[in-house]
């Protein structure tokens, strides 16, 4: 068959495919949707014919573009409806955490050790805080947790709660995302963020207790700490996973190992995002209220800690393990 003959016979079909792939209304179901896989195979067949018979460049090029668009349509579809979000939140996130326990332990240690050292250090010597914070920052911090009697009620007005909600989202989630992303530099960025945050938070805690503000500090932080501190450690662990894949790619090339590690790490980051949204909400609208007695705030805060740890590491062990195994097999 001559090229021109081939083109004349097949052109109406190609035009139909062009219309379908480039100019149909994607919000509406189309008559061709059901038959598309078969039509796509015909298209691929046409391209194979054109190539094997060495038809002209422009014909091969235009068929190649058509097949490419069809390929994206066909295989992109499947990828889109892979899994329900609820399913991920309930089982996928804890599964990703539990499958990466080693990174969590390392991240936890890098955060917790400076945290504990500076908590004790600043408690014994309140001046030590000046080694990690400037005098102005310390003054601001002390003003915030000053427990003078006239400051009871609410720490702030409710419209500034929304301001603080926005600030916590932008600041804390930004820190967590950066902590994750900079882990790609062989883990260094994540390690630094974890270590530095451990230092500062430990110093703040030790200092405030030493100067006698513990009674305003702990009821404030216990509510959101369960979500916030764990999420920062998780984001660091996800970053460490990226960095370690580059350091020790084992049987893969470095780029393949990185992409493989990222597929798992990003699941942890989805959870981190949700946890930090919850933390920002609690910190802005619950932690700042003083209408409830401290006992209630301690109880609520403790319950949240138990729930977070339980959900992440103990909840539905069999089903989460099953989910993780299914996920890894794909």
């Amino acid at each position, binding site marked *: 068959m001559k090229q021109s003959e081939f083109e004349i016979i097949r052109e109406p079909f190609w035009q139909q495919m062009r219309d379908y792939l480039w100019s149909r209304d994607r919000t509406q179901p189309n008559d061709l949707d059901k038959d598309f896989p078969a039509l796509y195979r015909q298209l691929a067949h046409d391209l194979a014919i054109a190539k094997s018979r060495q038809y002209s460049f422009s014909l091969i090029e235009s068929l190649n573009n058509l*097949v490419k668009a069809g390929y994206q349509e066909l295989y992109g579809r499947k990828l889109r409806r892979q899994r329900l979000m609820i399913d991920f939140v309930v089982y996928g996130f804890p599964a990703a955490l539990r499958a990466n326990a080693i990174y969590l332990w390392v991240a936890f240690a890098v955060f917790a050790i400076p945290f504990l050292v500076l908590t004790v250090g600043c408690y014994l010597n309140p001046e030590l805080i000046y080694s990690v914070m400037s005098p102005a920052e310390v003054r601001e911090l002390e003003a915030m947790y000053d427990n003078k009697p006239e400051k009871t009620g609410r720490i702030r007005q409710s419209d500034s709660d929304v301001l603080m909600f926005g600030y916590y989202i932008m600041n804390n989630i*930004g820190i967590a995302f950066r902590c994750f992303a900079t882990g790609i530099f062989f883990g260094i960025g994540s390690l630094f963020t974890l270590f530095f945050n451990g230092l500062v938070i430990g110093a703040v805690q030790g200092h405030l207790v030493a100067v006698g503000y513990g009674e305003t500090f702990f009821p404030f932080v216990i509510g959101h700490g369960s979500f916030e501190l764990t999420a920062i450690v998780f984001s660091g662990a996800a970053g460490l996973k990226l960095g370690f894949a580059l350091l020790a790619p084992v049987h893969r090339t470095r780029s393949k190992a990185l992409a493989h590690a*990222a597929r798992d790490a990003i699941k942890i980051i989805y959870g981190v995002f949700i946890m930090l949204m919850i933390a920002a909400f609690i910190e802005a609208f619950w932690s700042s209220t003083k209408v409830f007695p401290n006992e209630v705030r301690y109880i609520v805060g403790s319950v949240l800690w138990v729930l977070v740890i339980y959900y992440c590491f103990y909840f539905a062990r069999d089903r989460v393990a099953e989910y993780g195994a299914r996920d890894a097999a794909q």
Partner: protein
Amino acid sequence: MRDVANLDTRVLVETPEGIDLSAEIVGLTPRALAFTIDFFIRLLILLLLSIPLAMLGNLGWGVYLIVWFALEWWYPVLFEYFMQGQTIGKKQMGIRTVSSKLTTLNFSAAMTRNLLRAADFLPVFYAIGAISIWVSKNKQRLGDLAADTLVVYVDSPRAKDTSAVKFKPITPVFELSSEQRRAFINFALNRGNLSHDRQTELAQVLLSVLPGEAAESPRDYVGGVGAWLLGLREESK
């Protein structure tokens, strides 16, 4: 013979149907321009919003910070996921993000490559990302490597227009491989965005593929072979 595949910026993927698909990878400049467009769109939104929100006081500033956060981190993720790999800037530049298998990217890939902007951005102005694009084989920044994605040119429904090819067709005396044919054809299709000297330089590289072939003007010879491969013939001129 020299390997002309290395001269080309194409990536080949074999589909399950046994078809080789190819796409042209985008270099640094169009990507930087796309980013610049997106950057100014986001800046404009923030500027326009700041006026009404400032009047709402602290409540408004809280909302403003949330919008800022959403534009900084989620704008590229959501656009690339919902708009077949294209932000507004990428659409303007005629480029899109796809998976390394040339399929539409999934949500995790969109999320990974855009969160890792925080690493590519360092130390200033996407310096690490730019270096990564220059040195990596498929012009990927760190986010692309982690997400296993590529930035490619969007295809038009029809093949490139050959009417602007001005070279006089020359029949090649050697049989060329499909990669070599493509290199010659792309040279002929070049729309004059290269200087005459640069074209001659490139033509010499391409000509070295053919052993013993010498031409008075490498540019006209390589372009001529490309024109012939495109199906143009002497009498049609």
